[in-house]
């Protein structure tokens, strides 16, 4: 399950996720996210967009989803991207992948 919403006051795109972020979900999510990022950027073109993914309830992620995170972080800048509320298994998965810092995962 995925849910995206935009907080205009802090110019941040928030994603809420739960369950298994498998390949199918990731592939469906990718164009939606890309579109949403473009829309949000258009709202405040002179400000840096932030993206925050809430992983509360996420049990499993695929490399496809991680690639989406990496691409998103690249789009908005590493310092503007974060993942919060990872469970320990997901935290370790990102650690093994060497991406926990790059994606500001906590």
């Amino acid at each position, binding site marked *: 399950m995925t849910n995206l919403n935009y907080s205009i006051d802090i110019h941040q795109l928030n994603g809420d996720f739960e369950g298994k972020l498998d390949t199918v979900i990731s592939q469906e999510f990718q164009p939606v996210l890309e579109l949403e990022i473009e829309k949000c950027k258009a709202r405040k073109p002179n400000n840096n967009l932030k993206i925050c993914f809430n992983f509360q309830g996420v049990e499993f992620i695929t490399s496809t989803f991680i690639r989406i995170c990496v691409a998103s972080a690249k789009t908005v800048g590493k310092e503007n991207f974060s993942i919060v509320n990872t469970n320990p298994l997901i935290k370790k998965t990102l650690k093994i*992948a060497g991406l926990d810092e790059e994606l500001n995962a906590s």
Partner: protein
Amino acid sequence: MSDYKKIADELLGKAILAGAMFHQFNQEQTDHIVDKVFEAGFNARVRLAKMAAEESGLGLWQHKVIKNVVGTQLVYDSIKHEKTAGVISIDHKSGIMEIAQPIGPIFGIIPITNPTSTVLFKILISLKSRNPIIFSVPRRAPECCRKAVEICYEAALKAGAPEDCIQILPETNRELTHEVMVHPKLSLILATGGTGLVHAAYSSGNPALGVGPGNVPILIDSSADIPFAVENIINSKTFDNGTVCASEQSVVCEKAIAARVVAEFEHQGCYFLNKDETAKIEAIAFNQEKGVMSADVVGQPVTKIAKMSGIDPPEGTKILIAKQEHIGIEYSLSQEILAPILAFYEAPDYQSAIKECIDLNYLGGVGHTAGIYANDEERILEFSKIMNAGRIMVNTPSVQGAVGGIFNILPTSLTLGCGTGGKNITTENVTAHNLINIQRVCRRKVNEKWFNFDQSKYMDESLDINDILKEYNSNY
């Protein structure tokens, strides 16, 4: 940054991600993937064998089918019930629980002699241990390996395995192989190949599980069933035209039974070379300058070797046998030659026969495999204690015996550890359990002796070991 370094970075980057994904899998998910990959690999056994025989020009496709069966069915049988994810054992008495963790990206190096079977085997044990694997395939047999990888990868993905869990180097060359071997993100090199390659793997700075060269001596004792021994040796040595490193290289027997052994070999279709013929075979079978067997004879049938050397053995000859008197680097046929060529030694007595086996064992096959045919338990034990070999085959064809799962319950493997003698870290038949890190969760079980002993006494130099131990063990 060199192009090869970039390629290695890319491969390892993908492998690390695949490994991270794999880490999330439980035993059930892992086993499901292994089941499906086994099925796919097994179903492709004939196609891959024909490709391997044709492309490499070595061995017989029918025997390569059997190798592929060993690398899939028997390997699968030996690992399918093994626990490799999560908690793998709990010992309430000791308070120790073991948890398996995947080790991370593995670099699998494939030998020309057993290409597809080794690919299939390494894929199964890597997936079973939740590790991604990257392959370096032999230059003379790349396509059959690529096909094996493609078939297994497709099946693995369908079964839910992580993307890039199986990869292959885009090209085979020393520079790229080196870059992957030394890459800081690599966890283990699973090196099956020649001495130089295994040495390079161990020198890479990354952990490695390698193999050593074989120079398998076989002792036929006077207590042996000679026709049985000869039949088994022939079946083993002729398998895939002798390409397996565990194949018999020399037969040693006492003079008292030598004539019977020779007659039996001849009766069963082998040919003893005369001195001139032996010299011709030596000339083509071993490169004395380089100190290695000649690649031209590896895995070739007797007919082709005969033609190459200009000898004319009887039609249908199974093995060319050369009587030898000496053992050493200057004596070509006392060394490993992966072809249907066998050295034959007559020793004056049993003790001398064992000593010749020691010389052969240490000449180039230390730590690998040795064999004895005997019905005398004391002699079997003496031989076994004297030889330096990870596997001692008793009344067993050494090829089919050493790989495990056919004549014994050794773990089925196409990577046979040779211990420190072969510059390896293990004498085991390498399998899935060698590819996991085992964490030991230790519950508090105090050592009462330690805690009840007044440890200030260790500081007192006037107390010697007897004084200390007397009190340490007091009342226990």
